[in-house]
């Protein structure tokens, strides 16, 4: 596809269950980011992948959160033992790493997955 896709678009789960959120970045984009957006708030950085480098996990709020990425393709964000405060929209973005254009570091966002923890 032409853009970043995410699935599912909506996920309702019960407290304590595990969830997996998927992100398909734009083909050729080596950098991939996960963000969380609570209602009415700005985005919070969660994790960053770049090629085969170790991911930057500095934004993960707890050890219940983890993410994987296979090469330069699909990424999965996993939240274990979900809590009500995990309810938010989870956004994935990708970009071309490096380059010299004016819009260096332009990130392309997917539509997000709206997670509701009951």
């Amino acid at each position: 596809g032409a853009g970043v896709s995410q699935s599912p678009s909506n996920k309702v789960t019960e407290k304590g269950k595990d969830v997996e959120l998927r992100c398909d970045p734009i083909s050729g984009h080596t950098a991939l980011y996960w963000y969380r957006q609570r209602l009415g708030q700005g985005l919070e950085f969660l994790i960053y992948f770049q090629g085969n480098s170790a991911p930057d996990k500095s934004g993960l709020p707890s050890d219940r959160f983890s993410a994987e990425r296979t090469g330069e393709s699909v990424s999965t964000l996993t939240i274990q033992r979900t809590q009500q405060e995990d309810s938010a929209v989870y956004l994935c973005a990708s970009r071309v790493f490096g380059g010299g254009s004016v819009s260096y570091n332009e990130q392309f966002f997917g539509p997000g997955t709206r997670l509701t923890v009951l």
Partner: protein
Amino acid sequence: LAKTTQPISMDSYEGQEVNITCSHNNIATNDYITWYQQFPSQGPRFIIQGYKTKVTNEVASLFIPADRKSSTLSLPRVSLSDTAVYYCLVGDIGGTGKLIFGQGTTLQVKP
């Protein structure tokens, strides 16, 4: 990363020019200024980026004074479809490139 301050909300009418100013007093030498737009139920979308002086594209203009401690996003002749949240971000576009978002400015365009 430099902290930014922008108005929480703004109202405008169709056809008017809208200017949203962002303060970033602690901007560093390597920092760029980037603006994103977010519609409800969508991910943010890149609008414009600059380092100094003025940048213009088909969507907006970005004015940056010589001291770079603030910037102004200018939207010419807004329409109802420009109603969105506008985020000002400041940071080094090298490295990881992770974006630090504030609350943004909610622009409401009225008929």
